[in-house]
């Protein structure tokens, strides 16, 4: 295996949005916005953290057994939708007082329905989407059914029912929403988008079914947990691949590479390609709000990279594994969380630790989302 430090990205990302444009839009929005960090811990509590002070504001008890800790904030930042009860139910909280304003249960006595990570909110906040994976519970066997996108009206409040459903692929996890086209992003074997009014599906980026020759490339292995990128309106998803520079399987000549698929959730513009040599594992990439060529990753390390140059700029060793990473929209602080019960706060410039937020339980697979509330 060759881990080349002089890697040159084959298909560069980040040309669509200039750093200047990001900086300009960010500054006007920041002045009037309060940002709250949202995450869920075992046994089952939603935590609301003030990012000005990095102090815990309140903890809301979530009904049901811990699920995946999935959190989707409403576009106005006031409601946090939490996936709970063994990945089956969604409960919406007013984050200012923990009042439950929305609930839905997907399973029935005859049909078990799990949503694997997949939950998203429309850009106007009126609809909530899940991908349902139904299994009919017969007396002597289970029967898997066609997965479907389920659409809920958030205004329906308690015990809401789907208003529309559409068939979708298996193995869909991370969802997003494209404002310009009113489509739900379906992160699965390939990245697709579905019109939530008509059910029409189009492919955005091929991964599992990409067109490259197996003589030259290994099909990408995409990791699609945790919704990342809302701090600047992105849907970002890493993948891993191997480029065979010799015969397939010749590890001496092979290059192990990180790639990513990045979608502007406002316009739907997508870029996808290899960006960095695979030197260590990260669970997700996160784009710097002030320079779209700079990304951060977290796992056993917190790392900073320039994807235009294909270089790792800094690596900071972490005291334990973290699954999840997020940052403020002005780029002033990075939050690293998931797994255990502490969120580690870091300076994006130096990657040094500048704070810690202690929680009452383990985050496990929970999301760590930013809710932006206009003052």
């Amino acid at each position, binding site marked *: 295996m060759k881990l080349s430090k002089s890697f040159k990205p084959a298909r560069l990302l980040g040309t669509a949005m200039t750093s200047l444009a990001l900086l300009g839009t960010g500054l006007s929005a920041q002045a009037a916005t309060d940002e709250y960090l949202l995450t869920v811990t075992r*046994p089952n509590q939603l935590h609301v953290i003030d990012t000005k002070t990095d102090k815990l504001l309140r903890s809301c008890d979530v009904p049901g057994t811990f699920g*995946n800790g999935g959190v989707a904030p409403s576009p106005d930042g006031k409601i946090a939708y939490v996936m709970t009860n*063994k990945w089956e139910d969604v409960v919406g909280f007013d984050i200012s007082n923990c009042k439950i304003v929305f609930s839905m249960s997907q399973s029935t006595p005859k049909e078990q329905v799990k949503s694997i990570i997949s939950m998203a909110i429309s850009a106007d906040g009126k609809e909530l989407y899940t991908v349902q994976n139904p299994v009919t519970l017969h007396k002597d066997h289970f029967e898997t059914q066609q997965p479907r996108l389920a659409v809920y009206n958030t205004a329906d409040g308690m015990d809401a029912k789907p208003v529309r459903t559409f068939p979708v692929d298996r193995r869909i996890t991370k969802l997003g929403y494209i404002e310009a086209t009113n489509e739900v992003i379906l*992160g699965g074997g390939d990245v697709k988008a579905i019109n939530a009014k008509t059910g029409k599906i189009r492919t955005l980026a091929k991964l599992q079914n990409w067109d490259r020759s197996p003589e030259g490339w290994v099909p990408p292995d995409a990791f699609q947990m945790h919704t990342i990128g809302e701090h600047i309106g992105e849907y970002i998803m890493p993948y891993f691949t191997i480029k065979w520079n010799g015969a397939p399987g010749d590890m001496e000549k092979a290059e192990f590479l990180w790639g990513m698929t990045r979608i502007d959730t406002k316009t739907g513009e997508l870029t996808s390609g290899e960006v960095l040599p695979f030197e260590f594992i990260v669970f997700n990439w996160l784009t710097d709000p002030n320079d779209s060529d700079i990304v951060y990753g977290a796992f056993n390390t917190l790392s900073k990279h320039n994807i235009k140059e294909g270089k790792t700029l800094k690596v900071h060793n972490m005291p334990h594994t973290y699954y999840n990473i997020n940052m403020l929209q002005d780029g002033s602080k990075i939050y690293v969380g998931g797994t*255990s*019960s502490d969120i580690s706060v870091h300076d994006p410039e130096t990657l040094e630790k500048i704070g810690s937020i202690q929680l009452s339980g383990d985050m496990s697979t929970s999301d760590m989302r930013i809710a932006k509330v206009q003052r």
Partner: protein
Amino acid sequence: MHMYLHEEVLKQMKHLKSFNKKAKMLDAAVSQGDVEEVVAMQSVVGCTSVNDPGWEVDPFGGLGSLCQPMESDLYGCADACWWPAQVPDTMSSHPNWSQDVAKADEDWRKIDAIFPESE
């Protein structure tokens, strides 16, 4: 590694006689080539569908890229049903497992093992 295991299983199946209805259906599917290829870790899909090496070795053949310590990863594997053979699956079969242990790294002594109910 996953493809090797898959082929080995298929090879062994040639020497076995199908006993019940489900085994006969699987046998027929194998002979018709209808059994889907195993796809390793293409995406997270819940119980038994993720074919991941486990905690034994990382992608580089070492240990440095495994989750550390394992207590930080324990609930992440149980809740996502990532390795249901190694960790009780809280998604379906054992939802109440260790619900009273909020912090695995501090209270790992309180975490119980799972035993078959008949024993």
